[in-house]
């Protein structure tokens, strides 16, 4: 009986130990999930080693002084495959640069959790599906460039609440419906939407 109890106690400790990983490692896991979902013929993700304590030494990844990821720069990297919802766990991410690749699939709703995001560049890919209305939560966003994909559906009204938007490019997609003209969208003209 005592053996069973102590064994189960040990199991509980192990379970809890696994449930609370070092937060920086969770960011490495999130980026590794992205790597696993992408085809990388140019080996730009070769340095992405998930056994390291944090992803801050990985190429194309930039961290702040707390070893938390602030930038992911993978533009023009010949990547294909799909994005992953785990990207939403990079809570200090400011720049997500995935433009000019061959990435397909949808934009994950979880990107709306990146409340520190300043630049979201997914342009020149093969993304499809709608623009998630959760992107309206990105209240610090300055650059939103989703042009040259095959995104469909309507432009979410929630985007008009982002008052920091400076550059918005949704052109060359398959978006339908009305173009919002209220809120921050008073600054935007048809050249950003065709």
């Amino acid at each position: 009986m005592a053996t069973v109890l102590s064994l189960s106690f040990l199991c509980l400790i192990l379970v809890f130990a696994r449930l609370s990983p070092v937060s920086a490692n969770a960011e490495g896991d999130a980026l590794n999930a992205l790597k696993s979902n992408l085809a990388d013929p140019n080996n730009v993700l070769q340095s992405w080693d998930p056994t390291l304590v944090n992803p801050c030494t990985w190429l194309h990844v930039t961290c702040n002084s707390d070893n938390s990821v602030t930038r992911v720069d993978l533009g023009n990297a010949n990547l294909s495959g799909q994005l992953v919802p785990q990207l939403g766990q990079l809570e200090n991410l400011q720049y997500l640069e995935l433009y000019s690749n061959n990435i397909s699939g949808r934009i994950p709703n979880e990107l709306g959790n990146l409340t520190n995001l300043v630049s979201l560049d997914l342009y020149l890919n093969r993304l499809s599906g709608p623009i998630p209305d959760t992107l309206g939560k990105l209240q610090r966003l300055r650059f939103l460039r989703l042009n040259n994909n095959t995104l469909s559906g309507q432009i979410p009204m929630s985007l008009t609440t982002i008052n920091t938007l400076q550059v918005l490019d949704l052109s060359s997609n398959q978006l339908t419906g009305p173009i919002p003209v209220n809120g921050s969208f008073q600054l935007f003209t048809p050249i950003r939407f065709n």
Partner: protein
Amino acid sequence: MKRITRSPLSIKDPSFHTSLEVKYEACLVPAILSWFCILVSFWFMIAVVMSMVSGFRAPPALITIFIWLLVVESFGHAAQTDIDCLRDIQASLQDPFNYLSSWRFNNTTEGFICKFAGVDCWHPDENKVLNIRLGDMGLRGKFPLGVSRCSSLTGLDLSGNSIRGNIPSNISKLIGFVTSLDLSSNHFSGEIPVDLANCSYLNILKLDNNQLRGRIPPQIGLLNRIKTFSVSRNQLSGPVPRFISATIPAESYANNPGLCDISAHLQFQA
């Protein structure tokens, strides 16, 4: 802009299939270079097809050049007009303090104009101008008409210079999509053109501290996105416009001896 999709080539297969689908969307300027590229690429396509028919391996170089030409075409058009736009602006303005010294056009890589002083691009590696900010640079000359070639321009700031002459009477044909236009603190003269009322996306219109005279065109009040409108320190006269979706404070009209707000029985003396 053109988009290229192609399926992978397997040259080792003696009966290999090449499928190249090129979608052309509206092109702006049919430059001689583009027609040349189209002709040469058709020639290469025929060469590839013929090599396919006669059964030997098409040299990879041939196909590479073909693809490259199509890619070059796809970036050729809008990019070239924006480069010409900035070249024209530099040529038409005098720059005694050399603020535009970074505007060099000899090494033309993709996105090189994005590093020019005062130039904001839409995307960092594409020559497509978003904003031009040339405030307080001591520039002289007249309103740079070449700005019309920056077809995606949304912001133009020429404030704090010594630019003289009229504001172009066809300004909405030159910069029709502009949301912010700041011509303040220059030496602009003549009247405020009615055509400014056709720049329907204007949020900010600053014309203050110039030598503009005559009446403010009442149609300017129809600009429904206006947030900031300033004509103070000019020589304007007549009534102020009634804006349909903004309230313009009195100081925006100050220092125009002949300007009056009939509804408030105010005169905007110096």
